[in-house]
């Protein structure tokens, strides 16, 4: 088996891997390769044919393929090596990356640095524990999106969607426009985690009912799905007897959350956060294993690709600095979630430059402020009219405030009582 030395190996050729590669190359790393499992680079953007990508980065609304094409074009300009059709099988703590492809067979890269950019996957039916038969016709929304948008296949004609995340909403519209009948979108929680824009433009525009505080309690069908039962749930999310409604349908799409895809990270011994499902990193996106970095949805699930790109540029620059032998000036300080705050990234930071914290609010907070403090000293504060779990929040910390900080930093929500 062939072993190849590489300064930098990037796992994943989606928006995160592309941005990381571009940034590393621009920072002087010439000996790098991006390993991509699919036959083309671009990741999940390839199947996201709707528009709305790039508003922050480019000031215009692009479709997914258009957004990806810009990074792919820049990567080509820089002469980045992107190896498509190449699946990474394992990563070791010593940064040996084993991969396989039709062209090259089994190969091992001995990498100076590794950037994990594998993205996330959808929660499947098995994660829900919904009773019923194991018939065909139950798909994740993203799988259906791939069938329709990349393969030109319709997964079904009469559709119920469980979960009102943005992918589910987008697929409600896509399936309707491509000729299917979407009977209902069913959401367990009393609110949708999807954008208002998508509720209006993907459901209301097509008169698709949204059932809040409802869930699917039965899945029926011998070979193919024949119908589902939907029930209302109480405040403890338990189905309320007597509220059963049956829908005759041949397709059930699941849009019930995303999970960072960290199988390879685990093999490499990268410590993971139980809150984000991704690696524990410092402000350089450096994981707990020296020379292994993580960025994008494999680190924590983002709402916008623009922020994935931004984070991944920083990971590429940080990997380049690591390869030059540069180390942070100050020891790392721990960053903790306080009240009303979940999944703050990074989980530790070197207080030697400006750092932006990212996190999800634990609930809906109106007219609130997010505060970072260390040993009783306030480091930063940001007010907003609204914080919601559906929108990742950020809090910038200034270098001059961070200088000399050694005690753990806590990020918490401060709510003014306003009825």
């Amino acid at each position, binding site marked *: 088996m062939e072993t190849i030395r590489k300064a930098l190996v990037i796992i994943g050729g989606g928006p995160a891997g592309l941005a990381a590669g571009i940034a590393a190359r621009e920072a002087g790393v010439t000996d790098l390769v991006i390993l991509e499992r699919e036959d083309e680079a671009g990741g999940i953007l390839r199947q996201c*044919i709707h528009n709305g990508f790039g508003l922050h980065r480019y000031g215009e609304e692009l479709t997914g393929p258009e957004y990806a094409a810009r990074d792919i074009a820049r990567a080509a300009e820089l002469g980045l090596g992107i190896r498509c059709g190449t699946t990474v099988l394992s990563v070791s703590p010593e940064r040996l990356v084993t991969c396989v492809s039709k062209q090259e067979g089994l190969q091992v890269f001995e990498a100076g640095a590794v950037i994990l950019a594998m993205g996330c996957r959808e929660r499947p039916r098995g994660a829900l524990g919904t009773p019923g038969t194991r018939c065909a016709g139950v798909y994740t929304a993203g799988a259906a999106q791939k069938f329709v948008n990349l393969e*030109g296949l319709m997964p079904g004609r009469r559709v119920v969607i469980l979960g009102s995340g943005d992918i589910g909403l987008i697929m409600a519209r896509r399936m309707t*426009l*491509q000729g299917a009948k979407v009977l209902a979108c069913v959401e367990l929680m009393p609110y949708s985690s999807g954008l208002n824009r998508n509720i*209006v433009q993907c459901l209301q*525009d097509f008169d698709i009912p949204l059932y809040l505080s409802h869930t699917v309690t039965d899945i029926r069908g011998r070979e193919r799905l024949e119908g589902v039962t939907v029930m209302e749930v109480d405040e403890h999310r338990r189905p309320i007897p007597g509220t059963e409604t049956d829908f005759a349908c041949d397709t059930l799409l699941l849009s019930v959350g995303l999970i960072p895809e960290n199988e390879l990270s685990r093999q490499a011994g990268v410590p993971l956060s139980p809150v984000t499902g991704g690696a524990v990193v410092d402000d350089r996106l450096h994981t707990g294993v020296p020379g292994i970095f993580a960025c994008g949805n494999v680190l924590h699930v983002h709402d916008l690709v623009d922020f994935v790109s931004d984070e991944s540029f920083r990971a590429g620059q940080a990997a380049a600095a690591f390869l030059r032998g540069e180390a942070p000036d100050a020891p790392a300080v721990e960053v903790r979630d306080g009240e009303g705050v979940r999944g703050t990234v990074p989980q530790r930071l070197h207080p030697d430059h400006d750092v932006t914290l990212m996190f999800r609010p634990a609930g809906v907070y109106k007219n609130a402020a997010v505060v970072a403090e260390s040993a009783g000293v306030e480091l930063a504060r940001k007010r907003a009219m609204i914080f919601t779990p559906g929108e990742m929040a950020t809090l910038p910390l200034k270098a001059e405030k961070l200088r000399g900080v050694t005690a753990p930093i806590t990020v918490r929500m401060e709510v003014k009582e306003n009825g």
Partner: protein
Amino acid sequence: MAERVITCINCPMGCRMTVTLNENGEVTGVAGNTCKRGEVYARQEVTAPVRMVTAVVPVRGSAMPLSVKTRSPIPKKDIAACMEALRGLRLTAPIAAGSTVLSDVCGSGVDVIATKTVD
């Protein structure tokens, strides 16, 4: 006098806005919005709602369909007609991203363009 209640789509606040219209269908007032963007959206949405349309269409000579979009938003009432017009398209590869695949869809003055390249 007529009233319409709509949800603002500009931010997560999702303000519920009540728009008042006179007999001629002109907007006489917007209430319930928190910022100016809400009012602008409300006026547009009740008088002349527009939407971007994106879709996939088959291409002869390619295993994968082609993704397309309207170059700019079209009237909401034309969405179905736009999809019908796209269903009638007979395209052949190669097609470059950004090229027009259907001009002036439904008389909206807006072209439908390819959003990826099919070789």
